């Protein structure tokens, strides 16, 4: 305590106190101010500029010069970086042609370009951000948690995506795509942004923890050995087809062979 009181008249005290007070205020401000919901300023301004340039070349013909949307495509204000990441990294955007639904394809843009476009679209309005690995990674879940993920999957997802995630049909040529081999990140993003025909499953409906269990269930299901060839995991329709082709077809061939083998058939 002597150290503090003996130097309190020192001429450097005032500026130092001033600096300390500024730090304190700044620190308090960062703690007290509510966390920024929007990721509008998350990218650096040069990244946003690059994104805008890419956007105007590749996306603006349908989504408008400022992402306001046209008759050809919806507005991108408020869709968030996660939406750009999902749509472009799975190759669904840019669309090759107008269709009921954008199919999954090899991506056209690389990681840096996607980040730039995501930053630009995020700057248009607040929306879900690209998740960190901790939000979707299925690492470190117990067997019971994965089984719960299966129950969540069957309750929320299998009605459209099929019991094995093989995909299913929706009205008017639309479809729920196959989930086999889909990146965990893309599953998280699809739940949050509700792309194309899919409804949004927000964090209040399915928490990040639940997403991780669903991802883990799907991955475990793919790794499980099947009872032979899966026949597409499409259910009884393909089973019936193969029963007729392999079973009845094969047995009919055997029947022809047996009938042709006779004591006096030569």
């Amino acid at each position, binding site marked *: 305590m002597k150290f503090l009181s003996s130097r309190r008249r020192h001429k450097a005290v005032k500026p130092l106190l001033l600096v300390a007070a500024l730090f304190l205020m700044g620190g308090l401000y960062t703690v007290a101010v509510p966390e920024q919901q929007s990721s509008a300023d998350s990218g650096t301004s040069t990244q946003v500029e690059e994104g805008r340039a890419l956007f105007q070349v590749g996306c603006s013909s349908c989504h408008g010069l400022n992402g306001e949307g046209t008759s050809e495509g919806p507005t991108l204000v408020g869709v968030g970086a996660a939406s750009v990441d999902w749509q472009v990294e799975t190759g669904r955007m840019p669309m090759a042609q107008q269709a*009921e639904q954008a199919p999954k394809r090899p991506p056209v843009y690389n990681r840096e370009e996607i980040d730039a476009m995501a930053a630009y679209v995020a700057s248009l309005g607040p929306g879900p951000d690209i998740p960190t690995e901790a939000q979707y990674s299925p690492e470190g879940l117990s*067997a*019971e948690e*994965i*089984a*719960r993920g*299966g*129950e969540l999957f*069957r*309750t929320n997802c*299998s*009605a*459209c*995506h*099929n*019991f*094995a995630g*093989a*995909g*299913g*049909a929706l*009205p*008017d*040529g639309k*479809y*729920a795509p196959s989930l086999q081999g889909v990146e965990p990140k893309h599953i998280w993003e699809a739940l949050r942004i509700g792309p194309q025909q899919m409804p949004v499953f927000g964090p209040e409906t399915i928490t990040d923890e639940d997403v991780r269990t669903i991802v883990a269930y799907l991955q*475990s*299901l793919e790794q*499980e050995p*099947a*009872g*032979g*060839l*899966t*026949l597409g*995991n*499409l*259910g*009884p*329709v*393909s*089973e*019936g*087809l*193969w*029963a007729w082709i*392999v*079973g*009845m077809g*094969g*047995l*009919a061939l*055997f*029947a*022809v062979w*047996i*009938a042709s083998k*006779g004591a*006096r*058939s030569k």
Partner: protein
Amino acid sequence: MAKPAPLSEQTTVPATPAERTPGPVLRRVAGPVTWADERVGAAGLGKFFLRKIFPDHWSFLLGEIALYSFIILLITGVYLTIWFKPSMAEVEYEGSYQLLRGLAMSEAYESTLHISFDIRGGLLMRQMHHWSAMLFVASMFAHMLRVFFTGAFRKPRELNWVIGVALLALGTIEGFAGYSLPDDLLSGTGLRFVDGLIRSIPVIGTWAEFFVFGGEFPGTLIISRLYMVHILLIPGLLLALIAAHMALLVYHKHTQYPGPGRTDQNVVGYPLFPVYMAKAGGFFFIVFGVTTLMGAFMQINPLWTYGPYNPAQVTAGSQPDWYMGWVEGAIRIMPGWESHWGSTTWSWNVVVPGVGLMGLLFTLLGVYPWIEAWLTGDKREHHVLERPRTNPTRTAFGVAGITAYIMLMLGGGNDIIATQFRMSLNNISLVLRVAVFVAPVLAFLITKRICIALTRVDQERLLHGSESGIINRSPAGGYSEDHLPISQGEAFTLTSHNEYPVLESEEISPRQAKARRFFYGDNMSKPTRAELEAAAHHADGHDGDHELGDGDHHAVTGSRQPELTGGKD
């Protein structure tokens, strides 16, 4: 075409000398055989059955596939019942399949998982049982179509046909009861479907639902009730009807395809012992082998991925097994019509395609032999089969029926077709709503024309012979092909079918006459004896235009005897 056995001049087998000493095998079996003969009359039975003659044709083996599948079903089914628990009591899964551990499920589902994952050979047996069930119904269908298209249901076999229809209906119900037992998500969804079917029955629907399920769906009783139906009631009925089916088969004797030496009074073929013992016995093992291979290498009903039944859940690709697919399809493509009269609801969208169509199919099948008997007025016994082409209208009706069935079945798989072929679900359903009526009519017309065209080809072979492949060029530059006379055996086969001429109106009612004209009016009539003789005479060396042809057919003259068989028929 069936291969007729060549006629042997030796009609009787020379008796073996009585003093021949039996060999070592006969000496060894003599004791037991005598024992059996003295107690159950085995010698008489053996003499009757072992020497029973069966004709040879691959299509006669389709029914055998059904019989053998049934035996496989009994064997694998017994294995499954040792561990299956038909109970809807709720338990928590603690078995070895990690992805379901800790979930609440019924004992039925839990024991099925136990069979699949923890019982040695359990999954193989389950998959064989299921594949075998698919093949059982499929082979019954194929067998029925063979019987239909060859007219084997005609007198005296009408009752056996009706037994066959009953077997088909019972087999379908048996299959449904079976795939509902494991209480997984798919089977529960299937039960829900049937629950809806039952409820849609006008007026008594709700009462019937409560009767079947013991209260509201799903209740706690249905699995044990279906278990009784699946392992006791229907298998018992199936066994009894199969026995009756086979007894009548033995009593009527087997039908045979037309051919030289084959009449309605005989059966041309081989004896049961040793030829059919070997063939049928061998075929049993082939059917068993194919079923085992399918069970080993092709996954069927992976119910661990479906999860336990939960009325809140459903999965894309929820369909019944194939033989219920046409009912599913009919309901999928039916417009959603419903009426409310007073306090009652009439769900036309379910009762018409579901309950109505199933009743219609089995009723039509059941009464068909009498429809045709009424048309023909034919009271004779028929043991020689008709080739499908010689009865064009029946064949056309059959193909039209198959077409309608396939259209409905496509409707049942409309979502799978939509995703696999990138088509619109709605468009598939709209197209099928039209196609289910139009396609059978087209199929009828096309099939009938094809049949008539084929009988014309037969006629052509009878009158002008078979194409020799030798092309002649005339001095004028025209080309013509030589024809060889067909063998007498083939000529017999081609002319052995029935004809249904227009009858005098005193013999039949006007309605009967009209129906008969529709059915048989377009049939080709067989060439007369005079026509055949003229054609044979013509083939013997008269060049020149013949009455039916267009001048480019010339028979080979002189070089070959018409009596020689030009080829196998």
